[in-house]
């Protein structure tokens, strides 16, 4: 009697555990789908409005706000076309799955000379914000945290070079 009772109890517990697991999995799935659905799409041509602090300088063109930024976002990539990576506008790709993109390209170095160096980008989601890293072996580094709100694109930018660090919040509106 006691044995049968224990067995029945164990079966009940196993059933409960399986149910709990299913519910958890379902909730997780719903959560992932909901999060994915909430993630913004940054696609568009964006016109520069302002920066805090004003007249955010950057240096040698690295990190300087581009008057126009063209963003193209697909399911697994974001492409940025702008002049923020140096004096010459560039098209730079970020994979949204967190993996690196590496290529050879030109870059200004700290002395202002131009050289062919290695470039690398990486992107990751932080809730509804997209965190982008851009590095190159001319020792230029940039972290952009992008978000959308009220039709505006906000980029919280931080740059690192051997010289001074920079920090700024940049605002863009959609243009054509």
């Amino acid at each position, binding site marked *: 009697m006691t044995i049968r009772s224990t067995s029945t109890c164990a079966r009940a517990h196993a059933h409960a555990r399986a149910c709990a697991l299913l519910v958890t999995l379902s909730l997780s799935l719903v959560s992932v789908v909901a999060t994915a659905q909430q993630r913004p799409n940054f696609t568009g041509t964006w016109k520069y409005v302002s920066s805090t602090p004003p007249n955010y300088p950057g240096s040698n063109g690295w990190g300087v706000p581009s008057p126009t930024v063209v963003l193209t976002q697909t399911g697994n990539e974001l492409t940025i076309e702008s002049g923020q990576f140096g004096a010459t506008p560039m098209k730079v790709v970020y994979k949204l799955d967190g993996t690196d993109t590496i290529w050879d390209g030109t870059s200004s*170095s*700290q*002395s202002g*000379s131009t*050289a062919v*160096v*290695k470039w*690398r980008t*990486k992107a990751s989601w932080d809730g509804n914000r997209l965190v982008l*890293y851009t*590095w190159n*072996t*001319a*020792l230029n*580094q940039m*972290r952009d945290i992008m978000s959308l709100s009220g039709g505006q694109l906000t980029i919280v930018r*931080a740059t*690192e070079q*051997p010289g001074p*660090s920079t920090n700024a919040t940049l605002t863009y509106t959609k243009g054509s």
Partner: protein
Amino acid sequence: MHRLRLSLFAFLLVVLGFELLPSAASMQQSRVDPAKGGVGDITGPYEVPDPKWPEWAHPYPKPGYIWGSQGGVFAESPNRIYLANRGELKLPERVPPNFPGNWGFFNQQAATQPIANMVNCIVVVDGNGKLIEAWNQWDKLFEWGRGPHQVYISPYDPERHVWVVDDMRHVVYKFTHDGKRLVQTLGVLDEFGDNDDLTRFRRPTMIDWLPDGTFFVADGYGNTRVVKFNKDGKPLLKWGTRGTGPGQFNTPHGIAVGGSPARVFVSDRGNRRIQVFDVNGNFLDEWPGIAPHSMMMSADEHVWAVDSISDRIVKFDLSGHAEYSFGQFGTRPGYTWAMHQISADQDGNLFIAEVFGGRTQKYRPRPGADPTQLVRGRSLMPMAGGTR
């Protein structure tokens, strides 16, 4: 007429000036008076016995390349010296016959130009500068940055782990003594965090320890704080914001820990001062008028600071009184260009790594040197299982 006289004077000055004025190099040479102290004291109580030390780097690590910016040096013993080399630099097609083998000779800063090849980033040499170990297995760690910033062994660690700070990749590495294993990485490689982020650094610069293994990281070029860790590398607390007031920083670059009760001495380089804190980050004092790249706590409990402005090494007591200084900017032997880390071995030899000069020099105490003017390195704990 007045204008004509002035023009004639200017002309004569230009024509004759180049002939009459001594060259910078000869001025440097003429001022070398090793026996004297004071402002003109170039090498203080030391001499530079071999301008071509280390043997490993002379004439070249490999044909056509020279060692680059020297971020750090740590003398574990008179015959085991770690060099933190920020990569090697390709030489121009032609170099003059008197080229001494370091980039500073060209009057260009070696730290960032030209782009270095990240090879031989951590090497170990003996007292003669002969190569003992090249940790080439770790060169790849530095490829996306500018190489190791500084190198240390905690004086309180019986296993003598080797710590390397990489500012541009925002991490601090802890290696086994032989360099075979990377034991721990603090920070997130290539990702930089802001002042309130305890997971990431933003261009950390320097470390020092308490006897129980607790350590402090100056962070750094990008952030404006000190982070305190327990002996296992768990962050305990942080302090500092950007600014010029007490407890605020602008490029906290150097750090030294010592005294009783223990204090944390922070080089607030951008604000041209040293700030003093207790081990919980409470502000105690500031010493204005010096902007050290680096600092070192000596065995006789003094802070030795290497000033980025004057290129002098200054000895302070723990109350901030400057007791002695020596050094002068230059690229000839014994002079320095941007001292970045100093270290002294148990025989009294002093090693100075120069980021812009692109070399590490070995200084030997002169016979009869005043012992109070010598930098005395802290003793290291005996190594478990004996030294290598």
